[in-house]
């Protein structure tokens, strides 16, 4: 060690770190870098960015605080952690906002340079919390991060303003030292990112190293922490966010179906990234269309579906509402289409940057007329990859729209992902009819699926549209009996997807007193909560629904084997409503928290314990 001082290295199993600062302080970047480095040393991890809706809220204010939390461990983990063990606070507002969330005795590293009168006032501190005892009970490290960054950059040729920008790298370097992480992942990233701006590479590298060395030199830190690599299954891994995984999933579906990919989309938080990602991959025969509005986003995709593409549209709740009528058109014309709804807090504009699961009923029922569509939901960030493929497979093989539900938490969260090989991915069977003999646009196969004929196919010219069709011929029909038949056929066709979707699996005993059932992004919190309760001796099972319409065919049977079903949802009980009416289960216990935040695993654990009576459920 640099100063000859002995620093103790403490082995720990897991830790939750939160970086917080002004939205202009680069906290998202710092968090992402820390995640990538942490992933590369083999820890399991889960992340949760939390940023304000305003791009640059006034500096120093509470509502301008941007945060990034990550939970990493030498064991399997499933959530970004409940309460942070470590907080890096770049200004008073960041401290104020995050203090209530911290674990008792948590470590706090603050940038003292920003604790001036003005910033303290902006954060609403009447006196300086570093001096008035507010932080007693915490392990506080006050570090003049800005000053130390300036010192390190003394002979770099940059303006003061630009130099100040490097302070997040100083903080990052210090955290790397504290948790014994290597610098090379970030250094490589810097060199690539600022290829054409060598002065920025130099500045940020110097700041990063200065932060790292500061940990070494200062005598303040007596302990460093070591988190052994997690024992993950063998394979090659990468860190992946939900939006990235969604975009890649569609590219994979395009490759596996042999169809070109078309995305029609209008930018909306938190879904825009999927459009951004896919617009980069033109060499995969991907066409992206940034449409004039949400409706043009979906209708251009419907046009592309008619033309023979794997067609998708991406949006969030408000956009899904606008696309409603067009989804009905795709139902009526029986064209394959995937609609991605990255849910956010609603109603109306709601909480654009926060997460929620309150679009389930909209996805299932939000259309005029009887207009059933397939609905699937991803459970974790990396699961978005698989569910994007599944949504595409179902849409293409059943000639119908399918809605893929993700949410803000999955979209922006990330986790290590064991990368699959292409030949392990499901194959998607697509057939274009080219034989004019006996062709009828609404003839049906054994699954009630109509044929797909690409315009440009000679002698098969035909017309489709939003008016009710006569079965088989596809001609416009106002016949009452035909309408009833077509309504029934469209519903049965969606139901037929049950033949090709996997059964609902139960983790733990297949029958018993309590099953915790979830859907979508609650998976991680439920899994962690259930495991904790089990470690305390409670007997509890878990199941997670990824197919919401139709449900897996064994769903009713699985549910009937449990006396009580705990159903946590980040809405007011939407899946509960559906399950109650579909399966008439009387033991469904709703657990609803609609805060714009994911469930904490401790909340699930406590609920389980409360339900199982506080005692060991062996009896």
């Amino acid at each position, binding site marked *: 060690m640099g100063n000859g001082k002995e620093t103790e290295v403490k082995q720990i199993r897991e830790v939750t770190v939160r970086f917080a600062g002004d939205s202009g302080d680069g906290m998202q970047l710092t968090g992402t870098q820390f995640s990538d480095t942490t992933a590369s040393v083999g820890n399991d991890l889960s992340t949760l960015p939390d940023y304000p809706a305003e791009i640059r809220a006034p500096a120093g204010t509470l509502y301008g605080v941007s945060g990034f939390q990550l939970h990493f461990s030498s064991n399997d983990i499933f959530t970004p952690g409940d309460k942070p063990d470590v907080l890096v606070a770049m200004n008073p507002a960041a401290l104020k906002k995050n203090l209530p969330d911290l674990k008792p005795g948590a470590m706090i590293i603050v940038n003292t340079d920003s604790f001036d009168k003005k910033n303290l006032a902006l954060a609403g501190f009447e006196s300086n919390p570093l001096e008035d005892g507010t932080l007693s009970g915490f392990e506080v490290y006050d570090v003049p991060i800005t000053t130390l960054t300036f010192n390190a950059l003394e002979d770099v040729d940059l303006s003061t303003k630009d130099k100040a920008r490097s302070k997040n790298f100083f903080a990052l370097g210090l955290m790397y030292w504290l948790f014994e992480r290597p610098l090379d992942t970030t250094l490589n990233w810097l060199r690539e990112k600022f290829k054409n701006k060598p002065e920025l590479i130099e500045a940020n590298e110097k700041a990063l190293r200065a932060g790292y060395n500061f940990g070494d030199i200062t005598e303040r830190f007596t302990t460093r922490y070591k988190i052994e690599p997690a024992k993950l299954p063998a394979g090659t891994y990468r860190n992946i966010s939900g939006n990235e995984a969604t975009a890649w999933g569609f590219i994979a579906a395009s490759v596996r179906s042999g169809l070109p990919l078309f995305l*029609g989309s209008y930018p909306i938080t938190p879904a825009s990234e999927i459009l951004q990602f896919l617009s980069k991959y033109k060499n995969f025969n991907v066409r992206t269309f940034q*449409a004039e509005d949400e409706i043009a986003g979906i*209708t251009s995709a*419907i046009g592309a579906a008619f*033309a023979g593409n794997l067609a998708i549209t991406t949006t969030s709740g408000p956009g899904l509402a606008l696309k409603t009528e067009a989804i009905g058109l795709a139902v009526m014309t029986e064209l394959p289409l995937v609609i991605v709804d990255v849910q956010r807090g609603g109603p109306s504009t709601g909480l654009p940057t926060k997460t929620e699961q309150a679009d389930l009923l909209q996805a299932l029922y939000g259309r005029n007329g009887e207009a059933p569509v397939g609905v699937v939901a991803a459970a974790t960030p990396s699961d978005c990859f698989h569910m994007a493929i599944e949504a595409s497979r179902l849409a293409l093989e059943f000639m119908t729209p399918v809605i893929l539900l993700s949410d803000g938490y999955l979209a922006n969260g990330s986790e290590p992902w064991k990368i699959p090989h292409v030949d392990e991915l499901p194959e998607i069977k697509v057939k274009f009819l080219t034989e004019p003999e006996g062709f009828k646009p609404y003839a049906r196969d054994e699954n009630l699926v109509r044929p797909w004929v690409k*315009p*440009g196919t000679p002698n098969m*010219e035909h017309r489709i549209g939003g008016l009710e069709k006569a079965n088989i011929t596809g001609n416009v029909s106002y016949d009452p009996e035909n309408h009833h038949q077509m309504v029934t056929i469209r519903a049965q066709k969606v139901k037929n997807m049950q033949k090709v979707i996997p059964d609902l699996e139960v983790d733990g005993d297949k029958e018993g007193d309590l099953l915790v059932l979830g859907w979508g992004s609650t998976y991680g919190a439920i899994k962690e909560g259930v495991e904790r309760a089990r470690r305390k001796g409670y007997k509890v099972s878990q199941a997670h629904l990824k197919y919401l319409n139709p449900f897996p065919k064994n769903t009713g049977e699985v549910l009937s084997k449990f006396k009580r079903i705990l159903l946590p949802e980040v809405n007011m009980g939407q899946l509960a409503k559906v399950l109650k009416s579909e399966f008439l289960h009387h033991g469904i216990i709703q657990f609803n928290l609609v805060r714009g935040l994911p469930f904490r695993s401790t909340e699930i654990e406590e609920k389980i314990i409360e339900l199982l009576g506080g005692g060991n459920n062996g009896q």
Partner: protein
Amino acid sequence: MANNIEVGEIKYTPKDFASDQDVRWCPGCGDYAILAQVQRTFPKIPGIKRENIVWVSGIGCSSRFPYYMNTYGFHSIHGRAPAIATGIKLTRPDLQVWVATGDGDLLSIGGNHFIHACRKNVDIKIMLFNNRIYALTKGQYSPTSERGKITKTTPYGSVDYPFNAISLALGANATFVARSIDRDAKHLQAMILRAAQHKGTAFLEIYQNCNIFNDGAFRLLTDKETKEDHVLYLEHGKPMIFGKNKDKGIALNGLEPIVIDLNDGKHSIDDVLVHDENDDSLIRAFILSHLTDHPDFPTPVGVFRQLFQPTYDESVNQQVKEVTEKLGKGDLEKMLFSGNTWTVSDN
């Protein structure tokens, strides 16, 4: 259905473009004339293949059009035809995509899609059946109804100012902007053919008589006695003259259009404005568009403007091609394993 075997260029007849569906517009509707002229003109489009034609429509009387054409067709939802057509054309540049639409469909509920298709120069042909009324919903005023019009929803007369569809298309930078009239078969055929051959967004407004809810809306332009004094036929490179005796002309006094009398001894044919479709500047086309419905001027028909610019679909596909050439055809396995990865081995 004619049995066409693919050998070189196929010779079609108008009947080849008629579907087996009964046409169900009101007897006497201008839509019949438009359908007939389209079916007559399509065989004349050089290199046309029936299977490569797609008609897309929205909602309204005019939007039934695709059902009657024996081509690929998509009768969609209100106002969205240009966006659907865009999705088709972007992904299938080999297809020729037509939109059949009405004044409510295109200029009211679908206004946004219309201006953005024009702005981007998507290679689609938009045929607007303008009858200045909501006909399918049985007679409410439309965005092109004249001010003061009494309809079911404006019992005391409409107080809205109408859209001038040509000005709107010009303002949105459409690269082909033209107008014709349902009753003028020859002119309409010529305009359809011109639109078909244009590369880029082709906008063709057709004045269409709805004899049920707005009969006679274009009477001045179609009645024998009045039409010659009220219609100005725009022809590229020709002076803008009109009138029964071809003795009136349009001239410009600064930026002010005026009608001059070629017999008054003061003016000659040399004073008359000569039409230039390809004028880069919007100003003259815009001035001409504003002669529409003007009590002192004839209403122009013909091609107001035609520009030759790369189309949106062409550019999008060009970019796909260039990126693919530069980066090589995408390799999924490589992509998945690219960047920051790490390996966990068995132990």
